[in-house]
């Protein structure tokens, strides 16, 4: 059930990502929703789930983007694993630590992804710092908001039900 949820979340993120791809900041997409989902899964479910989600999401993303299949998968596997380890070793329940984790995860992903492409002499990235920083901030904001929504939504619905019950009585 949980696995199906992760797969659905990745699929939804990919679908949204393909529509958001046109919002580009200096050659880098402003928000990588797939990466946000991977880090979210890693922080909530641990390193094993994080790395598997990263591998699955990255490979699908690679296959859809007609690049070398595996480079995005490798980068997201690494990020998912490390985010999961951080999630189990440290208390990451407040907004600021979560923001930092999402920010650093995006930066690490960019370093590994672009680094591999440059190392293999397949593609060059000219001064991508501003683009990566913009994407890191975007991912961190979306990630933090996603956590808030997921955590606050059940309580809000409960209160709403309770209110409706009181009015009927």
């Amino acid at each position, binding site marked *: 059930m949980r696995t199906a949820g992760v797969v659905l979340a990745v699929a939804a993120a990919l679908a949204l990502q393909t529509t958001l791809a046109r919002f580009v900041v200096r050659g880098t997409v402003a928000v990588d929703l797939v990466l946000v989902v991977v880090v979210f899964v890693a922080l909530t479910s641990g*390193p094993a789930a994080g790395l598997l989600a990263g591998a699955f999401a990255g490979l699908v993303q690679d296959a859809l983007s007609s690049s070398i*299949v595996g480079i995005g*998968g*490798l980068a997201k*596997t*690494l990020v998912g694993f490390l985010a999961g380890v951080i999630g189990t070793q440290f208390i990451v329940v407040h907004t600021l630590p979560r923001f930092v984790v999402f920010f650093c995860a995006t930066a690490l992903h960019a370093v590994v992804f672009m680094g591999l492409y440059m190392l*293999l*002499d*397949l593609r060059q990235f000219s001064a991508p710092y501003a683009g990566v920083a913009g994407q890191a901030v975007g991912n961190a904001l979306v990630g933090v908001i996603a956590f808030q929504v997921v955590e606050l939504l059940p309580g809000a619905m409960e209160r709403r039900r309770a209110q409706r019950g009181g009015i009927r009585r």
Partner: protein
Amino acid sequence: MRRWDNPVAVIDLRQRAGYLFIAVMVVHVILISAQVTSKSGVPVLESVTFGIFSEIQRVMSTGVSGVRRVWTGYIGLRHLKQENDALKRELAAAQIAAQEQQALASRARGLEKLLELRDRTSLRTTAAEIIGMAATQDFRTVTIDKGTRDGLRPDMAVIAPAGVVGRIVVPSVRSAKVQLLVDRNAAAGAIVERSRAQGVAVGVGGDRLEMDYVSEVYDIVVGDIVVTSGIDGIYPKGFVIGRVESVERSGGAYKRIVVRPAVDFNAVEEVLVVVTPTPAREASGGASE
């Protein structure tokens, strides 16, 4: 309770994230390597695998050679061995020079061949030692101790004092895989020196070659010398491939010719790699650039 006492925990991947991480990363690396080709045009996976394995072969070859040298050279015939080695080197150089001279003389008969004389005399070679054989008999290849660091590239011809050995197929940084002429996937443009009949010498996987596409009208007899024609763009013209061992009428338009290679592929230890690009290789290199 320890993890190993619980069989469910042993197969539960969530408790083995580290191993899972390493496994997934290795799969990714292999996946990427299989898709990316190196600068020499060989897939990275093949190049890296061969590079690693050739280092093992180098170490083993060095060890075996060291023991053999100590036994035969130092303890037994120290001075004679050194002298013999020097004489062998001189003889090898003389045989190469003799082959070049022989080829030059034959080409001097025609005006057309006069232009090729310049290419031939300027042949630049680099010596290499064989450090390993193929992992399986299905592929007739050897590993030499020179690689891209020494200027070696794919499709460079490899020769020995006795004649043509093969061509380089997979160069790594410090070593290279050489496809022998007797490999079933190997072929070279060939010409019978006496009758000037042209054909293609192809490997059949054994220790003999077949010369294909030689018309029935040509006069070919057992003992005729077969040399490279140079039309394949890999092997320089005029190097000895072998001698005709048998000639049969196949009933069709071509003769069935079996050639005994001039080189004893099981005994060859040192080879020369022709570094000078052939005109065809220069043309293809220039086009790709």
